[in-house]
């Protein structure tokens, strides 16, 4: 179902999740969205993906998703250009402001799969109307007309740009040619490796992030935060800070003391001049060793092993990990008595707007949230704690602010991927795995901690928080391992800010399982690739494994101290295999030298963008397995910059990377998070084979 909106230019709208595609293109976050076929369109773009052709020959689609580097704007522009026969350079994909209805959630690697049907239907409808308008103008049968390069072409060679036809096309009610999307066999844009539509802005410094905005009066603002997680102000003397040049306001907030100044230099200097004594936070007695032992104790029992079987067991630990997007959390907030306007990058703008409205005491209809491009996210921008803080500071200071977290704020005050402990037991008998049990314990944030951090709104502000229990990914039965089992437990800690990190639970649980698969193979005297081929259930995942193994020359001879490792993963309707080569001649300073990935994501809308996502997840795997984590020392995060939060740099990245994308005409699956568990598992397995060790605690060099 596609609607025409009353407008003087051609403007068509498709409900997101509409059933125009044979696929289950439904947005997974609103499973009932497809049912609204009888909705009356009033001209609002709520719930809709709206396409407008302007008189200036621009094709504009306001996207209800956020661009944080994953390339969603390029993928959607390609879908539109494909069905409209428009030049990609004529398509604009601005990010939609927070809406009042519908789905505006970016997460779960769902953007492409949820937009693939609606975006193509929308553009195909617009094309049919533009062709019909040209046919009327030229008094030619519509079926004789062709479209290319954002224009309609007549058999005699005459052309009309879409911009010149848009006013007439807006009046077309019954298109004279088909409004249906092309069959995949005629795709010229979808499936073609394409450079990002914003690449030029990104290499020239023109791209704007929240901190780059010039909103009148919005002054640089930073917050003095406690040394410990959840620490509270005991005494505050802000006289010296207030007397400093360029300081406009000093405001107490839940997280500390905010300083508003003329520049960030003045703001940081005044922050450092605040005299604050802090009461330690609720975790002040706690360090890593205790957290680890409590996690170990919280892992639910595995139960009895099947009689007569041989056991392969492993216990694994993962440290906390920061999201640490390159763009630190930044919000421009202008909260007035009767309205508010904010600019920040968010994966959940509708929830953010509602929470902010309630926190500052305004109706949601009076709060405008402009969604900005984000400098990375990795799940961090599911949460809008930082925007809520900026709104409260703006309200208290009675002026617009540009509030920026420092890098130390970002690392020391969250959020982070929860630390976890895993206990796994595989049982084999007669050469076959008959049972596979994986139990975990994860740190979770207690409700008391959330309430202490700022009341009920704080709970609402943490949609990405780690769930406490639920089915493990192993329940999906990727492998034919007989009886599957396991349970999850939790250690509740107050005031520990947690958040979903790219690939969420799979980043740890599936990684552990891929390490165990290697250890089972070893116990059975089998090669890791050959063993996986015999026990993987799915044809597609076996195919990506075969592809990675052959492209990566699995089993080739390597120098002593070097090793290969493989791992696979299946999620979001997609699957992936990763082959890693590592140089661990210095086991304390290993280098991944080569990474080969193979992925089947159904139709890969932009193979170049997909390759970028696989590359990024490879670096995530290298970082989380070998190098990057957070220590907790007496209730405080030790790391404060990229000097000690040791995310991979160029010298840790593979010298050779290749990604193979399996040809497919299937519906697009998800890809943004897909590679993390496969890359992490393959790095661990390569390290194990290179060093003859059994990696158990991650990151390995910490």
């Amino acid at each position: 179902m596609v609607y025409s909106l009353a407008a003087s230019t051609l403007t068509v709208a498709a409900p997101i999740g509409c059933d125009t595609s044979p696929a289950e293109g439904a947005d997974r976050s609103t499973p009932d969205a497809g049912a609204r076929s009888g909705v009356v369109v009033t001209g609002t773009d709520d719930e809709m993906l709206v396409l407008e052709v302007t008189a200036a020959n621009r094709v504009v689609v306001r996207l209800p998703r956020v661009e944080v580097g994953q390339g969603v704007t390029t993928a959607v522009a390609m879908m539109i250009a494909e069905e409209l026969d428009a030049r990609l350079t004529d398509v604009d994909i601005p990010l939609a402001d927070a809406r009042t209805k519908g789905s505006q959630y970016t997460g779960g690697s769902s953007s492409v799969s949820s937009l693939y049907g609606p975006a193509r239907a929308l553009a195909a409808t617009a094309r049919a109307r533009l062709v019909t308008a040209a046919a009327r103008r030229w008094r030619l049968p519509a079926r004789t007309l062709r479209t290319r390069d954002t224009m309609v072409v007549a058999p005699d060679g005459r052309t009309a740009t879409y911009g010149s036809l848009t006013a007439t096309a807006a009046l077309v009610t019954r298109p004279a040619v088909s409004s249906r999307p092309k069959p995949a066999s005629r795709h010229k844009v979808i499936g073609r490796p394409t450079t990002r539509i914003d690449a030029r802005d990104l290499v020239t410094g023109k791209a704007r992030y929240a901190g780059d905005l010039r909103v009148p009066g919005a002054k640089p603002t930073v917050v003095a935060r406690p040394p410990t997680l959840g620490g509270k102000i005991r005494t505050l003397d802000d006289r010296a800070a207030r007397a400093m040049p360029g300081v406009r306001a000093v405001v107490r907030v839940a997280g500390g003391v905010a300083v508003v100044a003329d520049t960030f230099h003045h703001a940081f200097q005044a922050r450092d001049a605040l005299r604050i004594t802090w009461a330690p936070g609720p975790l002040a007695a706690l360090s890593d060793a205790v957290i680890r032992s409590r996690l170990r104790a919280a892992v639910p029992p595995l139960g009895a092993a099947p009689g007569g079987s041989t056991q392969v067991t492993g216990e694994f630990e993962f440290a906390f990990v920061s999201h640490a997007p390159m763009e630190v959390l930044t919000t421009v907030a202008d909260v007035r008595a009767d309205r508010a306007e904010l600019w920040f990058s968010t994966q959940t703008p509708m929830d953010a707007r509602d929470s902010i409205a309630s926190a500052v005491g305004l109706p949601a209809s009076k709060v405008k949230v402009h969604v900005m491009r984000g400098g990375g996210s990795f799940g961090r921008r599911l949460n809008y704690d930082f925007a809520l803080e900026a709104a409260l500071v703006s309200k208290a200071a009675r002026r617009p602010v540009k509030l920026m977290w420092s890098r130390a704020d970002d690392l020391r005050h969250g959020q982070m991927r929860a630390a976890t402990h895993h206990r796994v037991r595989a049982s084999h008998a007669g050469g076959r795995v008959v049972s596979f049990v994986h139990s975990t314990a994860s740190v979770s944030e207690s409700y008391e901690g959330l309430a202490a951090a700022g009341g009920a709104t704080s709970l609402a502000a943490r949609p990405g928080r780690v769930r406490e229990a639920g089915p493990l990914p192993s329940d999906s039965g990727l492998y034919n391992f007989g009886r599957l089992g396991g349970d999850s437990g939790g250690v509740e800690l107050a005031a520990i800010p947690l958040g979903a990190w790219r690939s969420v639970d799979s980043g740890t649980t599936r990684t552990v399982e891929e390490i165990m698969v290697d250890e089972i193979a070893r116990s059975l005297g089998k090669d890791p690739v050959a063993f996986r081929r015999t026990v993987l259930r799915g044809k597609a995942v076996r195919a990506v494994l075969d592809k990675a193994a052959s492209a990566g020359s699995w089993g080739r001879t390597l120098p002593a101290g070097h090793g290969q490792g493989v791992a696979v993963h299946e999620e979001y309707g997609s699957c992936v295999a990763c082959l890693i080569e590592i140089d661990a001649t210095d086991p304390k300073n290993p280098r991944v030298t080569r990474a080969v990935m193979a992925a089947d994501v159904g139709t890969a809308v932009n193979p170049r963008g997909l390759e970028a996502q696989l590359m990024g997840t490879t670096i995530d795997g290298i970082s989380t397995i070998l190098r990057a984590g957070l220590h907790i020392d007496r209730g405080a995060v030790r790391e404060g910059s990229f000097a000690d939060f040791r995310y991979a740099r160029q010298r840790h990245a593979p010298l050779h990377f290749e990604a193979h994308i399996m040809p497919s005409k299937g519906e697009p699956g998800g890809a943004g998070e897909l590679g993390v568990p496969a890359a992490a598992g393959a790095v661990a397995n390569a390290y194990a084979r290179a060093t003859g060790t059994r990696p158990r605690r991650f990151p390995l060099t910490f």
Partner: protein
Amino acid sequence: MPRYTFVLNGEPVTVEAPADMPLLWVLRDLLHVTGPKYGCGVGVCRACTSHLDGAEIQPCVVPVADCADRTVTTIEGLADGDTLHPVQQAWLDQDVAQCGFCQPGQIMAAVALLQRTSEPTDADIDGIENVCRCGTYCRIREAIKQAAADKSRSAGIGG
């Protein structure tokens, strides 16, 4: 308040600022040149990387007083009008950027590297400390190699 004059992207500019104010905030908050990004403020992540008299600096740790009467180049000053610098062009051709936030600094670091050595080795490229949290490193390596090859080719053609 002291005044400092320097050449910024080809144009002389004068600012009133405390002597210890980092160049990064002079650029961003006083001159509204926002290509150089804040990512740590301590010269570690290098998202702000720019050039002072043609050499690589991290403006977050360089006081404005050190820039007086010198030449500052940011990402905004790299292209020649609409013609991209060969390193920017290589970045575009390799589609390096993901979120893009670190890329102005990555590009300025690569330009500085290519000025130091026209044919950088893998070890030279490994020496770049700039963090990319999206993990675009493999494409950065390819783009630097492409820019080096393009440069030597055009040098060859030019005699």
